[in-house]
């Protein structure tokens, strides 16, 4: 055990959970199950990026859907028009989101009031959505950007050429799972690093951190940039997974609501929270397909109940989650 890095040793449950998730393609090749779990993992990474800003750094923003969408559109457009492989353009998307994140952070640094922060970030995300919706020549707006290439095939030793098209749900699953594992490993390492501890100190008390000589500006800027980078990268993965983008689906407020619900339900400020929240909500949302029109109601009620009775989320609710029937019950 000593050989393992600290971040891995720190949360054995999370990592065994992630490892188990990676085994799913060995158990089933059901395209639907893989599709749903792939989406759940995408939302988990996205929620994790927001969780870094909100849960760890206390930067209570409501505009992360903008970074997700920027990553998605930048990657999709440069792959379509530049003829580059999504493996490359994905990083364009992430960097673009990170740059915008850093720029947005500058005015935010002056704002310490929570509602102002919430409203301004929401406004910013709406501006990005409107831009995207109106630049029809570039993005095709609400007509939908179609014809986005999937990730190009990779040559894997022992397996030959592995492709990631709509027909290859298992390989795509493994690809997204790798992104999830890498993101969580990175975040796990980050929040335990010196920088991570300073970030959390800022969350707990800006004044105290400031009085210790910590540069709030630098750390907030750093956190939001990293967080936007991650959101942009997963947005790009989403684009090359779903293959169609519309401003509403990749930048809409519904995305923000979903992300908030996932993070809060799972447990804000914990590494495993977004993953748990995403699995529980996505799987139960699929289960609730039969309930049809009232899926959103379940989302809303769940947010209210969690905030009222389990403000620390399911990740810290050992009692509830300890019952094995719970996860299966959610899927029913």
């Amino acid at each position, binding site marked *: 055990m000593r050989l393992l890095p600290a971040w891995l040793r720190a949360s054995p449950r999370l990592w065994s959970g992630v490892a188990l998730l990676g085994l799913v393609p060995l158990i089933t090749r059901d395209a639907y199950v893989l599709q749903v779990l792939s989406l759940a993992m995408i939302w988990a990474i996205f929620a994790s990026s927001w969780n870094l800003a909100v849960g760890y750094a206390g930067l209570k923003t409501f505009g992360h859907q903008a970074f997700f969408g920027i990553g998605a559109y930048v990657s999709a457009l440069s792959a379509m028009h530049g003829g580059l492989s999504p493996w490359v353009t994905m990083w364009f998307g992430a960097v673009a989101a990170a740059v915008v994140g850093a720029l947005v952070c500058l005015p935010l640094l002056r704002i310490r009031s929570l509602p102002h922060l919430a409203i301004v970030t929401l406004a910013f995300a709406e501006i990005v959505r409107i831009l995207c919706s109106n630049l029809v020549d570039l993005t095709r707006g609400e007509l939908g950007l*179609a014809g986005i290439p999937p990730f190009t095939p990779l040559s894997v030793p022992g397996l030959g050429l592995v492709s990631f098209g709509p027909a290859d749900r298992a390989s795509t699953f493994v690809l997204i799972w790798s992104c999830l594992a890498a993101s969580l490993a990175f975040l796990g390492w980050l929040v335990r690093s010196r920088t991570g501890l300073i970030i959390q100190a800022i969350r707990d008390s800006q004044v105290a951190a400031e009085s210790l000589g910590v540069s709030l500006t630098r750390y907030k800027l750093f956190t939001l940039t990293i967080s936007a980078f991650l959101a942009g990268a997963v947005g790009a993965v989403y684009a090359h997974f779903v*293959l169609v983008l519309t401003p509403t689906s990749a930048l809409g407020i519904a995305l923000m609501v979903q992300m908030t619900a996932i993070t809060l339900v799972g447990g804000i400020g914990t590494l495993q929270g977004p993953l748990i929240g995403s699995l529980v909500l996505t799987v139960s949302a699929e289960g609730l397909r039969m309930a049809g*029109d009232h899926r959103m109601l379940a989302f809303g009620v769940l947010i209210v109940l969690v905030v009222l009775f389990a403000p620390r989320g399911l990740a810290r609710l050992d009692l509830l989650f300890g019952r094995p029937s719970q996860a299966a019950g959610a899927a029913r």
Partner: protein
Amino acid sequence: MTIRTWIRGAVGAVVLALAAGTASAEVKVGVVLPASGPAATTGISLRDGMRLAVNEWNARGGVRVGAGQQSVTMIIEDSQSRPEVGVSGAQKLLSRDQVHFLIGEAFASSVSLAIMELSPQFRTPIMSGQSIATAISNKIRDDREKYRRFFKANFNSDVYAIALRDFTQVMRTQGRLPAGGGRIAFVVEETDAGRSNVADVSRLLREEGWSVATVEVVPLNHTDFFPQLSKLRALNPDLVVTTFTSPQAGASFVRQWNEQGMRMLHAGIYYPLITEFARLAGRSTEGMVWLPKLFDPDRVALHRDFAQRARASLNREINTDVAYGYCYMMLALTVIDAAQSLDPDAIVAELQKVDMPCVMGRYRFDPTNNTAMVGADYLSAPIAQVQDGISHIIWPPALASSEYRPAGSR
């Protein structure tokens, strides 16, 4: 939470996921439509229309399969108008429920564009509903082999544009519009329908020497058009074209247009055919030109019969979307019945040669792009004008029951 819990949870979910698909002796038609979210109004109307078709077939004993008949089950999945949600639903219907026919998506073009990427992996025939994006047809045309099992049951978005262009040509010969091409202004909503109408109409009219005065795009369900109307009055274009998908937005526009005493030629696309529109807009519609005049339960006998039958069965207001939904399901069940088999290839073969009259027109697919054919015989976009409270078709001449009458000539 222990490792054991994780395992149990994961295994439980997977087992549950695997256990659901069971075979039975019935014909399963899957439908992906927006049952919640911004387009839920349309989605729910479509669903009700489809249910009516299913009920009618089942009342007759079902569709022919092999020697006997099998009853039909409809399985609905919600897309929330979001591509990834729609794709998940389609995946479920195709791989888990193993439906014999998929209508997906019944409404949003963006969702249909996403779902059609699934088509090459499955043998099941897939048909999009009201999605009008030309991109869908172009993709099928460009790769016939890949998308041979994907069909598009609505015409392309440029149908409206073509109808409008031809109409303006007539108007120009009558001297009602400037001979060398005039100035056109758009007020449309921020949807694929709104955007594509602007693109198609302005492209066609520019070729005829027209210029675009302004394009005003408003959010979905927008209802305060006074700033736009003030601007239109200041610009004074020769023709104003509007597109909305909600009858409310359209009614608000027409009402406010009237209240502001606007005199320009105004053509409304899509929203006036929604039955609720006439009720909401009242007398303000007088003189307005609109298209497509497809569903008219007040005057067309076929439509009236359908509306009565549907109202009795569904106990709800019958609008164009209900009729559309009915026709899509009729199409699906007709081809299965004709194939007398649940074999996907047999069904696809029937789709290729289907020629089915329905409430909304005659359905036949263009073999070059698997798209519903357009024209006076098939689906069409007749232009009507409200004259003394009644919508009369004024174009194409073959169908016309009246001639264009300028405002104030009553």
